[in-house]
């Protein structure tokens, strides 16, 4: 851990807008120094508000307090907080070239021209943008804009990096590439980072810890493995990864469909089997070959649907009768 990394802490921060709209219920959140925390949730859950509170772009309702390091920054304006932010729309300055965008924060902070040029060149090289330095912003591709936005945020060496849906605006292939690049970069910089996303793959790949939010609250905060293996409630179970919910009872180690209880199964904890060896039987609705696994959708005889990840290329045409074996349930909450 670099010595100049700082922790971020929110205490009892809620946000109600002037028109009465409640964006965030009171939350406590602590980000350790050097940690990458991913805030994951559907749109409108209040995750972006968390980010804007840390940046100082919104002020918390009375009573809420925000700390960066040991300092209470609740009343400190954005420009004095020393945070770098990448906006979802990138918000690059259209009147400036690529290099001038990156150098903006240095110019504002009155770095001299030489220092500025060195730092900008360093970042251009780091982001593989050197050959485009003189380009106006509107001539850049989506991926280039994303990198410029990141370089611009990092240039003044902020204590905290805030990323608002940094990869959402990109197409799928580019998103995968940049996700790897970003993970590598964050690992190298070891800067305290808060990342907001609605994409669980992004959150799991980049976050040391993930805070899952829904309806203005944090549902669960933990490592990606914890969230996946031991979701605290049905929302987290459904939102992180794919989850089968089955109304069934376990009687003497055997699964009996029906009843009040809901059991949870990850797709890879189920397997296809011949009808006589299976826990339950049903008809294949569809199957999607995805290389290492084939995802098979099965309708059970009582109408419930299951998603099964079968290893390798399983041959399961629609309409085929199959059996399903339940290997392991996932425990949700304390149930």
């Amino acid at each position, binding site marked *: 851990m670099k010595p100049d990394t700082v922790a971020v802490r929110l205490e009892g921060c809620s946000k109600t807008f002037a028109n009465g709209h409640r964006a965030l219920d009171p939350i406590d959140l602590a980000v350790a120094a050097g940690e990458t925390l991913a805030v994951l949730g559907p749109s409108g859950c209040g995750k972006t508000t968390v980010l804007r509170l840390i940046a100082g*772009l919104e002020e918390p309702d009375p009573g809420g307090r925000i700390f960066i390091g040991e300092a209470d920054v609740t009343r400190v304006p*954005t*420009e*004095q907080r020393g945070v*770098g*932010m990448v906006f979802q729309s990138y*918000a690059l300055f*259209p009147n400036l070239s690529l290099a001038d965008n990156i150098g903006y*924060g240095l110019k504002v902070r009155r770095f001299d021209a030489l220092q500025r040029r060195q730092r900008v060149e360093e970042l251009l090289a780091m982001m593989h943008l050197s050959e485009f330095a003189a380009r106006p912003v509107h001539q850049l591709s989506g991926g280039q804009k994303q990198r410029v936005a990141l370089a611009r945020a990092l240039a003044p060496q902020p204590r905290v990096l*805030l990323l608002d849906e940094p990869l959402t605006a990109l197409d799928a292939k580019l998103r995968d590439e940049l996700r790897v690049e970003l993970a590598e970069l964050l690992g190298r910089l070891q800067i305290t980072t808060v990342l907001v996303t609605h994409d669980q793959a992004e959150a799991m790949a980049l976050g040391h810890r993930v805070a899952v939010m829904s309806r203005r609250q944090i549902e669960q905060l933990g490592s990606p493995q914890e969230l996946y293996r031991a979701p605290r409630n049905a929302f987290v179970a459904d939102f992180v990864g794919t989850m089968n919910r089955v109304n069934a009872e376990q009687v003497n180690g055997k699964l009996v469909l029906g009843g009040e209880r809901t059991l949870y199964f990850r797709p890879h904890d189920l397997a296809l089997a011949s009808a006589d060896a299976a826990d339950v039987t049903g008809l294949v609705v569809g199957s999607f070959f995805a290389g290492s696994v084939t995802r098979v959708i099965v309708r059970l005889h009582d109408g419930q649907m299951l998603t099964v990840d079968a290893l390798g290329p399983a041959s399961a045409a629609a309409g085929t009768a199959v059996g399903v074996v339940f290997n392991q349930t996932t425990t949700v909450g304390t149930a």
Partner: protein
Amino acid sequence: MRALPALRFQLQLALALATAAFMIVPVVVSVLAGVTENYFVGWRSGLTLRWLSEVWAMYQSTVWLSLRIAMACVVVTALIGLPAAYVLCRHATRATRLLEELLVLPVAVPGLATALALILTYGRWQALRTSWLFILVGHVLFTLPFMTRACLAVLAAIDLDALEEAAATLGAGFGERFRTVVVPNAMPGIVAGALTVLTLSVGEFNLTWMLHTPLTQTLPVGLADSYASMRLEIASAYTLIFLLMLLPLLVGVQVVARRFVAGSR
């Protein structure tokens, strides 16, 4: 049947040319009158630059005053209009929208009425009443909506909130943000507004006629004066001078503006 589209095109062309001629011929006639020895005799009396030099000797000061007022008007409307547009853009509420509508009022109200109101209110301050600044006040009142609206249109088209927030996270305070984000990005609007304001101010007559004093005659007021009291040829020569002054000015400003906007990108 094939001849029909060709015929239609020819009719359209004829109509367009006739319309253009209807508008341009009076200008040409007026300009020619300004260089004719005696308009009532016609061409046979010969061409002359006499009238032009006479106008220049008599009314030169009106040309300079008009230019000075127009330039000052551009500066003042930009200084007021851009911040006004900024506030209207950043705080778009029902109240500010109403304000935006009210801003256009001086354009709809007859200039004479505006001028009368100005005279009734401020006319007793002799120093102001006799100064060219009094006319400037009128012109600013009349042209400000055009500058504000031009700036507003440009600011509304960009995501100003996000740009300013980005600048703030990079360490820029309000003043710095306004100078480095708002002004450069509003520049195309300021330039477009400046052109409109310049044109309107140079040609403004209604307000100016009420607000002027014998020592603060602008070009259009001088023109009216010459039409009323001089030979027809003199007034026509005056029109020619007006055009000679105005056309290079507008073309020049366009060129400078285009270079400026291109340079700031």
